[in-house]
């Protein structure tokens, strides 16, 4: 079964062959490397840019204004913080011009901890991203969702940010989550689309007959149904929360795990349905915990569903410190881990008004 990074590569291939993608670019995105996570190997429209994130974002905006369909990559979201003003411009040109112009670009960037990336390969971007109006923001937790969300992003007439959970990029699809048209056998798929090590000058990928598949932007996915606690999460923390919930089932705790998938717009109906069922909420994400997107969800839940709550809603997020340290202990102590999620769910479930 394909990994998330292979799913992303396949969606990009479908995008450039069938859906008008004209440029896939960023630092080390083109040959020979094809991306530091291999996400852009073998793509015919992939090219290497100068080492200048402002130029990369500006290039994408300009291409989009010229009616192209650019997909820009910022190598690590840690290096996107010198472009926030340009991301704001991308998000405001349609509004500023009263609808005269639109900016159909996709920005993809790896986010989060989990690869021992130390201070500058562990940043999250969800809180920052949700602060930039005019953007749609998606973040998959499975290869299939990555495939379907990226194709939806490519079709969208607005700027769409595609956040790639670094720690999940090499995780493979589960049964039942096949990518339509992709071979099931890892080896076969790898031989078709993975670039060889060493010299690649004569290599060309052989793409399987991939089919279109769309995950609508704005729709969450119930990963695990449950009745005691609603866990609202996305990206890397979704499989963690699922594992925590499964382990807790033994102790009779039945948690519902929801993968938001879209951070903006987000699926308020799904959140409402779950909270009115479980009456207990845990938001989990890796971003720093002061002025965090999970706090927006909790604020809105408190404003609109206050009397549905049988326990104080809880946020489990990254420590509000300047970076994530390299040493294992430090990283573990800085972002949510399975055991912490488990404890938080159990406490919420045990809480009686």
């Amino acid at each position: 079964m394909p990994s998330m990074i292979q799913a992303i590569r396949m969606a990009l291939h479908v995008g450039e062959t069938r859906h008008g993608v004209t440029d896939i670019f960023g630092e080390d995105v083109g040959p020979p490397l094809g991306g530091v996570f291999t996400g852009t190997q073998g793509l015919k429209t992939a090219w290497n840019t100068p080492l200048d994130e402002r130029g990369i974002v500006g290039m994408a905006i300009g291409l989009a204004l010229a009616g192209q369909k650019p997909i820009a990559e910022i190598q690590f979201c840690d290096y996107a913080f010198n472009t926030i003003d340009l991301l704001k411009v991308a998000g405001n040109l349609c509004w500023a011009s009263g609808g005269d112009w639109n900016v159909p670009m996709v920005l993809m960037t790896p986010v989060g901890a989990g690869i021992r990336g130390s201070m500058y390969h562990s940043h999250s971007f969800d809180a920052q991203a949700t602060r930039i109006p005019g953007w749609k923001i998606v973040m998959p937790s499975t290869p299939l969702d990555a495939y379907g969300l990226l194709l939806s992003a490519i079709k969208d007439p607005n700027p769409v940010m595609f956040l790639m959970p670094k720690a999940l990029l090499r995780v493979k699809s589960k049964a039942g989550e096949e990518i339509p048209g992709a071979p099931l056998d890892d080896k076969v798929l790898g031989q078709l689309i993975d670039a060889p090590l060493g010299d690649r000058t004569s290599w060309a990928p052989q793409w399987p007959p991939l089919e279109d598949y769309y995950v609508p932007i704005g729709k969450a996915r119930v990963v695990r149904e449950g009745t005691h606690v609603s866990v609202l999460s996305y990206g890397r923390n979704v499989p963690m929360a699922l594992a925590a919930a499964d382990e807790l089932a033994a102790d009779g705790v039945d948690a519902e795990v929801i993968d938001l998938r879209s951070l903006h717009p987000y699926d308020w109906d799904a959140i409402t349905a779950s909270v009115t069922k479980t009456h207990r909420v845990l938001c989990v994400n890796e971003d720093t915990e002061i002025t965090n997107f999970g706090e927006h969800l909790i604020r809105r839940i408190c404003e609109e569903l206050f009397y549905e709550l049988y326990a104080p809603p809880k946020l489990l997020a990254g420590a509000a410190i300047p970076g994530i340290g390299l040493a294992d202990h430090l990283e573990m102590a800085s972002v949510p881990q399975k055991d912490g999620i488990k404890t938080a769910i159990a406490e919420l479930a045990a809480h009686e008004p």
Partner: protein
Amino acid sequence: MSTTLSASTPTTLTSPRMSAELSLRIYDLMLRARVLEERLISMYKQGEGYFWIGGPGEEAFNVPLGLLVDKGQGVDHDYMHLHYRSSGTLLALGADPIDSLRQMRNVSTDPYSRGRNFAGHYSVRAWNVVPVSSPIEVQFSMAIGTARAQRKGTGAKGITIVQGGDAGSAEGDFATALVWSSRKGHELPLLMLVTNNRWGISTAYEGQHGYSQIADRGKAFGMPTAVVDGNDPEASYAALHKAIDYVRTEKKPYLLEAMVSRLRGHSSASGANIVKGEVDCVERYEQTLEARKLKTRGECDELRARYAQELLDASKRIANEPAPEPSTIWDHVFADKNLVGGE
């Protein structure tokens, strides 16, 4: 590779005499642009708008620019990433000045921003005029994108033109445009224009720059550069013509700096009053045309009075146009279904 017309030398004499017809057309547009800015300033002073910024002192350069671009929508026409002093260019492109009055009044009929943005913040998709953004110099980072869509091999007939001021060239985005447009083997059809009025709000050019001319910064990148007297419409026309031809045929970048005046100060924030000691390109060109017997003083004054009256009437016509509805703040956040937050 690099041509330099110094700002001091009387470039009118060096540049070939222009046809009377074109001279008069340029003069007419320069005058219309000047009168438009004066109307906008009076509107501001009479409380008919909150803020003014614009281009009095840049007409001799911006009008020829508007006349020389290939106007239209899409990659086969020229993209323009302008800043907030471009009324001359817009009028030369054929914009109706009444729309500038509408933006000044921030009424719902403002076609450029629906009452959302400051005066001089144009946006005309049908003419490839991308929305003017207030943040200085970001247009230089975006321009490389429209230029790439028109690069050699695409078959696109258009080029990209980006314009900014002198102080703004200190932003990294200016360097971004230089670096990305000149990559060997990947050059971009990008014309970079710097209108140098020797000021950034209250900060003088002197003491802020290490080069004598901003155009010099292009030389290391192997692109042609030039400096032109932007108060001379004919020299400006010639310099722009040369630069645009080069970019269009070579599909490579060019950096052109125009020395211009700032006749009303930076903006209404500094009073928008007449500044002494600056060359007035409209007056200067009127003298040239008088000397050439193409206009008399009387004709010039009469024309100016007529245009002023037309705009005064226009401002009255729009006096009762409605302000945008509060609820419209939610419009156009997205180009498709407008879904803010989550529903």
